């Protein structure tokens, strides 16, 4: 009897597997018709899960992607292409002097709990954000002297012109919530958007459901599931096994693998992701501008873009999608020879530097940097740390030499005009130009001033911009209407549809 046991065990194992095979009911048949199914459920792979759902206090793009436009709305919103468009306001007007903003609030808007949106809710929401310093982006409304409602007309006045004000209203600061709402914002939401928040399985997924009382065109699907799958390989497996319809934050180098069976197409869109190599000029040797320039000229930016598989080079603080962008490649042409000379001039041969990088970024970029800098005589040590440690050491204490972080936020030039930011860059001329740009009432003039300031930041070699990332999204063939531009920052899924398979 014992003699047969090993065999029996093997049979048992195989049997167990075969059994489960019989109960498998996966039919990911490719779609033949392109008729959108209004009752469809779409599963979208996301990389990072929000810690909680409190959009007023909790940081992170994961929350913006999930909640802004889909669940919460403001008077105005932005398109993936970064244009400002009306949302809860059907129309708006800015006075000549740039001090008065007049919005016409839509009628017939209801919150997810059935209560109507009133002009007073708008007044309350904006005032509350401005007056609660612990709220995210509270300072963006600091210049607001008054907000009043007269019928459906909302009037906001500013103490001085602010060319970024309307843009700020498209973000968190401008979201409109119900006055006196008792909803626990950490775990639930009560907005006016096309989707309601139906359930949150922590560590797994958030499910949004179409809101039937929505004021605008109803959402194209009845349900959207944000599936949080941090591991790239697990996400690829899930896609290949037909468990997700869309993969955001995809690795462009795996495009062939996901496209191989014909069920997915990889779409590459522009983004405002800036792979920023911060250089701490507060301490030697990086206080010497020649050393910073040498590092930038030693880096082969084209090789980095190629290794990542998507995106483009960026030689200044403003990416192409943002106002004030200009091509600054002339500032730091790739030239290892010049880099070596600069280092020699600065008396900084045999330099040793440490790069502090949050550990979830992988090693591709670090490896290229080590090799590029080695070529000019700089020894680079990589110190991968947890994000919370990065926040503590680099962001708060500014205890670093070089640091790499992908800054995803759009229109964040202000950080170069803020010496208290962790970049530590302090240039009065840049701060003055930025202030003038904010005060400009003419858009073209504001952009031109930003461009001037950006050039100075780059010429000062305040940092290096290793690449301007792309939005890489693998879209299932039954899916239409999936946004593909700048999806790492915002993700409006109202128009996504799924055809009947």
């Amino acid at each position: 009897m014992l003699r047969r046991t090993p065999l029996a065990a093997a049979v048992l194992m195989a049997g167990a597997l075969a059994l489960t095979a019989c109960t498998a009911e996966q039919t990911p048949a490719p779609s033949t018709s392109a008729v959108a199914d209004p009752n469809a459920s779409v599963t979208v792979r996301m990389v990072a899960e929000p810690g909680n759902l409190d959009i007023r206090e909790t940081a992170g793009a994961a929350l913006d992607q999930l909640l802004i436009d889909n669940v919460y709305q403001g008077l105005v919103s932005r398109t993936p292409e970064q244009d400002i468009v009306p949302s809860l306001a059907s129309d708006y007007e800015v006075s000549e002097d740039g001090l008065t903003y007049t919005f016409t609030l839509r009628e017939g808007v209801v919150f997810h709990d059935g209560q109507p949106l009133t002009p007073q809710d708008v007044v309350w929401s904006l005032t509350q954000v401005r007056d609660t310093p612990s709220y995210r982006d509270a300072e963006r409304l600091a210049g607001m002297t008054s907000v009043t409602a007269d019928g459906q007309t909302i009037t906001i006045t500013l103490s001085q012109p602010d060319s970024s004000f309307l843009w700020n209203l498209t973000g968190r600061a401008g979201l409109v919530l119900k006055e006196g709402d008792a909803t626990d914002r950490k775990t639930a939401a009560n907005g006016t958007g096309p989707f309601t928040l139906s359930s949150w399985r922590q560590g797994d997924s958030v499910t949004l459901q179409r809101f039937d009382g929505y004021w605008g065109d109803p959402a194209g699907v009845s349900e959207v599931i944000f599936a949080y799958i941090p591991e790239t390989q697990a996400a690829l497996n899930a896609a290949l096994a037909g468990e997700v319809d869309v993969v955001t934050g995809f690795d462009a180098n795996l495009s062939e693998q996901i496209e191989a069976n014909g069920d997915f197409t990889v779409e590459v869109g522009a983004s405002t992701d800036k792979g920023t190599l911060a250089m701490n000029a507060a301490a030697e040797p990086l206080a010497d501008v020649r050393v910073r320039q040498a590092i930038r000229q030693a880096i082969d930016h084209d090789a980095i873009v190629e290794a990542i598989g998507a995106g483009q080079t960026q030689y200044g603080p403003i990416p192409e999608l943002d106002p004030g962008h200009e091509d600054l490649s002339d500032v730091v042409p790739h030239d290892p020879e010049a880099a070596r000379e600069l280092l020699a001039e600065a008396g900084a041969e045999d330099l040793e530097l440490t790069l502090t990088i949050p550990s979830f970024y992988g090693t591709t970029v670090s490896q290229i940097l080590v090799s590029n800098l080695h070529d000019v005589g700089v020894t680079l040590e990589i110190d991968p740390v947890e994000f919370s440690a990065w926040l503590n050491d680099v962001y708060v204490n500014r205890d670093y030499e070089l640091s790499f972080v992908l800054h995803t936020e759009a229109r964040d030039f202000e950080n170069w005009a803020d010496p208290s930011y962790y970049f530590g860059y302090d240039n009065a001329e840049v701060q003055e130009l930025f202030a003038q740009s904010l005060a400009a009432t003419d858009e073209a003039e504001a952009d031109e001033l930003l461009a001037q300031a950006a050039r100075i930041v780059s010429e000062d070699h305040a940092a290096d911009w290793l690449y301007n990332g792309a939005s890489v999204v693998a879209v299932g063939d039954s899916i239409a209407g999936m946004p593909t531009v700048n999806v790492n920052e915002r993700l409006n899924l109202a128009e996504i549809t799924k055809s009947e398979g």
Partner: protein
Amino acid sequence: MIRYALTRLVLLLVGLVVASVLIFVTLRVLPGDIAQMIAGVGSTPAQVEAIRSGLGLDRPLPVQYFDWMSGVVRGDLGTSLLTGTPVATELAQKAEVTVPLGLLAMAIALVFSVPLGVASALRRGRADGTMITVGAQALAAVPVVWAGMMLVVVFAVWLGWLPAQGFPRSGWADPAAAWRALLLPAITIGIVEGAMLLRFVRSATLQAVGQDYVRAAAAKGLTRTQAMLRHGLPNVGLSIITVLGLQVAGIIVGAVVIEQLFSLPGIGRMLVVDVGQRDLPKVQGELLVLTGFVLVVGFAVDLFHRVIDPRQREAQ
């Protein structure tokens, strides 16, 4: 016996208190804090301070520790700073994934390691016996992550029999789907743990074969296999239980890795995320429960041994 049990129980409690202090202190050594995590990049020091004092993190450490402990004594494991839900609730929710996963992994490990281990011991010196031993050694050396990826590629991606990742969103409402989601991860842990168990079963069996009582039985006319089955295996079984008790910790560690790989919303993955986000009160509660669980299993195994094995009672 009762005296032994009481002594052992006191040791268990002391162990828990020591563990709680260690957990509390070790976590405080980590750089970074949750207030900064919540506030994130772009926050001002004032914003972070407001969040920190709102969460009660600005109180002295001993106060925080005694606060935690007095809660634990009352059966309250505390509240997650990030999500605002009670730690016990979240643990119970994640245990719905991790406990069946561990049990299934253990069952899989046992199903192949016991018969194969015994067989390879009885066939020592023969080709098939050696093959099993070498195979087990090779399997035990396989990294869990690699084994998991291979299984996913074959059974989920190529054959499409089993899900590649995740757990049904409806939980155990559909038991078949839930078990299917757990099968690949459980096999992955089971193979690696089972390979280690197999080597143990083999050596325990070899030891039993050499014992007088087995030889005596064989002398009375039983074949060697019969003698092993009737007199040797009960003793082997006893020591397997001890090893299984020890392996509980191994399976928990395996779950941490495997739940990441398969995106399973279980205790292991929750721990990793919570440590990363510095949700310290939550991590404290989780670690204390896990430590307590391992200690209690050890306690139970010891008592069980006492009851079953007369030799240990006499030795006291």
